């Protein structure tokens, strides 16, 4: 038995050494990168000044045209991320504050994402290389069921989220291969999609008094940031639009913009405006909230 335990010990030792080495190599490479996605762009940033920061999901990422804000003399960046939930949105804001960003206005897309308090694995994974680097990230993730494994088991976080921070991402980061995520000041325009499914059913969604939206409100208040919470447009053929009324009832401060763009020609899919629609929508937001 002793001989066997030594054998197992050797394997475990090789495993542990490899895990520690790989963890170190991966973390070091990701720590150098700041231009491949919005998460690392914020985490590895120096203090910044912005007039407008946009946060939310793809419905923020594809809907707010930063360029139109800039034309009004408002320094703007769109940090909306496809798939992100308010869980990650709140963390992004915390990280900006931790890095001493000076922000005057924050526009948060608050509509369908209010129905969810869970993490989005795709976005969550992008924070993994920085788990030990930032206390803010550590504290934000502490209540996750798999936090202990992710935090203490070397390399486990990279294995678990290999789609986002696995070998492929690591290799591309090492080569410093660029992405278009940060182009157009974070805004990602969508084209017209003639085959798109222009209907949606959101009857089952129920807005929550979302703890992460509450967090965002508190952070903004504490840091004297003007918080602008808005809904964003949906195509006309949506079942369950009463959802937005429930949002309004729950959060009267959220501004209703779900109907401001009408017509399928302005949509890339039912929940996403195309570039033409996004420009209409952004113009309306600027007109209502920054010019009046």
């Amino acid at each position, binding site marked *: 038995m002793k001989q066997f335990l030594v*054998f197992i010990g050797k394997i475990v030792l090789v495993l542990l050494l490899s895990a520690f080495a790989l963890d170190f190599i991966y973390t070091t490479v990701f720590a150098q990168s700041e231009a491949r996605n919005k998460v690392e762009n914020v985490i590895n940033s120096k203090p910044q000044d912005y007039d407008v920061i946009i946060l939310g999901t793809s419905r923020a990422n594809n809907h707010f045209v930063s360029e139109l804000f800039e034309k009004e003399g408002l320094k703007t960046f769109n940090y909306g991320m496809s798939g992100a939930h308010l869980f990650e949105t709140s963390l992004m804001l915390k990280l900006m504050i931790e890095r001493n960003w000076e922000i005057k206005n924050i526009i948060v897309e608050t509509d369908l994402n209010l129905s969810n308090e869970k993490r989005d694995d795709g976005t969550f994974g992008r924070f993994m290389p920085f788990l030990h680097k930032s206390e803010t990230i550590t504290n934000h993730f502490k209540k996750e069921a798999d936090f202990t494994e992710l935090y203490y088991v070397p390399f486990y976080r990279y294995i*678990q989220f290999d789609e986002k921070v696995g070998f492929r991402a690591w290799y591309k980061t090492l080569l410093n291969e660029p992405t278009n995520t940060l182009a157009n000041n974070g805004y990602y325009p969508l084209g017209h999609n003639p085959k798109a499914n222009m209907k949606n059913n959101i009857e089952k969604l129920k807005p929550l008094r979302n703890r992460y939206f509450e967090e965002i409100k508190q952070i903004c208040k504490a840091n004297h940031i003007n918080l602008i919470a808005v809904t964003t447009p949906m195509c006309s053929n949506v079942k369950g639009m009463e959802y937005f009324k429930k949002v309004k009832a729950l959060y009267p401060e959220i501004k209703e913009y779900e109907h401001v763009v009408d017509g399928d020609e302005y949509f890339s899919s039912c929940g996403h405006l195309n570039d033409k629609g996004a420009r209409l929508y952004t113009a309306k937001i600027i007109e209502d909230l920054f010019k009046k």
Partner: protein
Amino acid sequence: MLFNSIEFLLFLPTVFFLYWFVFKNQLRAQNVLLLVASYIFYGWWDWRFLSLIIASTFLDYFIAIQLGKTDVSKKRKFLLVISLAGNLGMLGFFKYYNFFVSSWIEAWSSVGITMEASTLNIILPVGISFYTFQTLSYTIDVYRKEMQPTKSFIDFAAFVTFFPQLVAGPIERASHLLPQFYKNRTFDYQNAVDGVKLIIWGMFKKVVVADNCAFFVNKIFENPEAYSSGELFVGMVFFAFQIYGDFSGYSDMAIGISKLFGFDLMVNFKFPYFSRDIAEFWRRWHISLSTWFRDYIYIPLGGSKGTQWFQIRNVMIIFLVSGFWHGANWTYVVWGLFHALMFLPLLLFNVNRSHLITKSYGWLDFAKIGVTFLVVCIGWVFFRADSIADAFQYLAHLFELKSLGLSLFYKTNANLMIFALSALAVGILSMQELVWVIKKRDLPKISAFGALLLVLLIFFMGSFKNQMDFIYFQF
């Protein structure tokens, strides 16, 4: 609990420690520990599943005891029928009820008669087909007086639920595994080391070969029309390696884990893709199931004795039942039928035993291996497709040979990377197995250095996202 999960990484050393350090030389306590551990392992999926396996255990335990007490033929038959009805009834209800109801409705609607019947929201208990066949082997062996019924409920329950092979086999025979619970087990260093190496090899097959191949397989089978003949061919070959890596990987891990506890399980795969004809393939693939069918269905039906028509009937039955065992979908039945049709010419020309596993390979055999592999791959299309129509559509597009382009695999950097990983993994697996086949090994033999290398390959090349379930759990 999945073998490739964190929970199992804690579970296995804990059980191992208790087994060899706390309950060392205490046979009864060790068996109780294995039983409790197996219930925890199985209940981890859903504790409600335990009720079925416990019911099945009680049923066969008591039936066997009763069988041991009587020589009256009618009574013995009656007891056997109760066991068969109970076990196959549970299997039929949980696995096939909805399938039969919907097939019945579809059959009538195809002749213009509309029927209404409701299907039930039934969860399929993990591994039910495996443990049902395992317990049945016990009752049938006792009925045939090939073994004595056990008096120890604990030993029997531990045999039925033995966690390393509970949910995806090998389907052990009572006559092979159950007696191992009666004997004192001593720790054997070489056996345990071999076990660990098998676990590592099985893990490599699962997370490196199968799970990497799965990326393209899922994409291609989801929408075969969108891909070229070349891409469909690669998708088909990758599925062959996905299912092999997945299933045989599990078996290797099961055998390896059993070795850690001093148990010997039967070999379930003998490098099946090096078969020279379909008959040999079935001597190398899922051996525990094919021999189960041979011993408990094929031979009782008359086997290869009798007229040619009689033999054809038996072969058809065995392959169709084997297909149906895999799942409640006509695709599996067609898969079984396809293999039957490939096997029958060998039987009819009396060449079905010309490639026994022990026979050495000549140069010409490698051409035969290629042809057999291609035939097996075509069969896998039926196995993997969602419907028979989908399978035919896949094959039609494949053999259209309109375009042999492989752009899917290098369309994006991510695709190219995964393709390279999958191809490399398949290459490593094939080359290694070729060496073992030529050396006529039954089980992989890995050096200590090889094991360490595999550990690193698992780390570097493994696809761990979402801990993909083993395909065979659903059966």
